[in-house]
């Protein structure tokens, strides 16, 4: 290969990458700038040029955020032992954000616990029914969750968790991908170490705690990230389970803004920014772990 051809290939690929990167970044740029545009600036009128650039074209305004934060609610309310505990008053949009975070964090924690326990025994124990259970897990994994939406809805109402975050958390935790992932991680545990622990007189719980857990630690990172993003983006389930205003997630909140005020783009963009920016910041901080987790999940899974 001549150097010329190589150089032109490199230039071509860089140009194409930059174009693609702009395609990917532009919606985010448009969200963030749109959210601080005044109503008069945001609608594109025929014959006028688009207001692209911050500061020169756009004088930032907080009015969209002010409108987004207008209606308020309590952060939480608890009724217990005859007392009603009410959280501090916060904007409805922040409550939606809180709901999203609560659902994702809870699903993440519960998944880590249930999947690591189950993955370990499926990998390392020989017991009656193992093959059957494992097959069941694998078969269910390929199904889209949405297929069971309607029965899930009546199930949730029967056990009284419809319209609560748990109606979203439980099905996400039940999804067997985590078990499958943790089983793959547990298979790397040397059986001799488990034998040694048993000879030392450690019980099953203790063996799991002090031998297995440290060895499958990287798996937790991968699983935690997967579950967090899955729960955060689990839109269909949220859509049918959470109908009360206070229980909505931020994704549902923006979707509702879009359908009730479809041309108040400033307001919609403010909502979208509120949904996107926090998780982007989390992603940028933990970027290394994200890529590690994804890679490991794939290699092991």
């Amino acid at each position, binding site marked *: *290969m001549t150097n010329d051809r190589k150089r032109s290939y490199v230039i071509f690929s*860089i140009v194409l990458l930059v174009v693609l990167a702009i395609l*990917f*970044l532009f919606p*985010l740029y*448009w969200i963030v700038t*749109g959210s601080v545009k005044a109503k008069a600036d945001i*609608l594109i009128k*025929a014959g006028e040029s*688009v207001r692209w650039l911050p500061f020169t074209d756009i004088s930032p305004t907080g009015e969209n955020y002010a409108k987004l934060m207008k209606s308020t609610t309590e952060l939480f309310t608890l009724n217990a032992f005859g007392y009603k505990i009410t959280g501090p008053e916060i904007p409805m949009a922040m409550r939606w954000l809180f709901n999203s975070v609560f659902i994702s964090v809870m699903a993440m924690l*519960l998944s880590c616990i249930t999947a690591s*326990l*189950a993955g370990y025994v499926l990998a390392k124990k*020989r*017991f*009656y029914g193992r093959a059957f*259970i494992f097959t*069941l*897990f694998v*078969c*269910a994994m*390929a*199904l*889209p*969750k*949405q*297929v*069971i*939406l*309607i*029965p*899930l809805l*009546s*199930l949730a109402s029967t056990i009284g968790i419809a319209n609560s975050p748990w109606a979203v958390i*439980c*099905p996400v*935790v*039940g*999804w067997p991908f985590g078990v499958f992932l943790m089983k793959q991680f547990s298979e790397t545990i040397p059986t001799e170490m488990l034998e040694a622990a048993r000879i030392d007189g450690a019980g*099953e719980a203790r063996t799991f705690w002090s031998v297995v857990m440290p060895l499958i630690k990287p798996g937790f990172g991968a699983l935690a990230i997967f579950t967090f*993003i899955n729960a*955060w*983006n689990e*839109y*269909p389930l949220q859509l*049918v389970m959470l109908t009360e205003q206070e229980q909505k997630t931020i*994704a549902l909140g923006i*979707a509702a803004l*879009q359908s009730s005020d479809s*041309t108040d*783009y400033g307001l919609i963009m403010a*909502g*979208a920014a509120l*949904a996107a920016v926090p*998780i982007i910041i989390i992603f940028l901080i933990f*970027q290394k772990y994200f*890529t590690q987790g*994804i890679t490991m999940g*794939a290699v092991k*899974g």
Partner: protein
Amino acid sequence: MSQSPVLRRRETVVSYLFLLPALFFFVGFVVTPMAMGIVTSFTDAHMGGSKFVFLDNYIKLFQDPVFLKSMLNTVIIVVVAVPVVTVFSLWVGSAIYEMRASARSFFRCVFYLPVVTGSVAVVVVWRWMFHTYNGLFNHVLVGAGILDKGFPFLGDTRTALACVILILFTTSIGQPIVLYVAALGNVDSSMVEAASVDGATRMQIFWKIKWPSIMPTTLYVVVITTINSFQCFALIQLLTSGGPDYATSTVMYYLYDTAFKQYQYGYADAMGVILAIVIALFSALQFKVMNGGTTE
């Protein structure tokens, strides 16, 4: 690994104790609703009640032009999105792999962002950009004199599905790129060097040396992209509501529409069962290829 029956019985008790939490959620919130859905699919369940109709829903499904169209759209999305995502992510992955570490992590990050932000936030902005009267694209195209007046990208049967696939592409390419960059890192670099010293071309190096070691990653990418594409729902619900004339309706969307706008739960559940079978077939096929293709 042979065990005595006594030991095995003890192991069984312990194992089920460990499995209990996972089984609780799995049986309670996946297996049970699945069973309920299958049972309901044999009834005419609607808002007022239900009665057993055996296979009527299934027979009706295969005569329902909207269902067949939705199935076709679903297959089109999968068949177009999977190869495009796979090839593109492999190309981007190898292109950025050769760059400096900082550039590599910048691009990896950029392509991963739409995955993180979630489809809802992304879709609301795309929908605005595609808008016939207020959209950015039409403004630019009309301003440049290419179009006389705004073109309804999302409202035209010829372009709507393409728009859906474009957005699906931007939200699914991130993870495969990360995977490919990692997989290329595992390629034995001494072999690559040796081959280029021997005068092998770029293409030869790719196919003979790199491809075998990224093959497992490719299969994994194909499987996850397939499942993601089958699940494409939020995108359609928020972007086009299945229109125009069902041009972007997928089985998943039509199922939702039937259940929540027309209150025909039994019929919708029958669609769910069919979709599950189709996905199971696809996945079984891919798992088979995957197991055959890896030597691990």
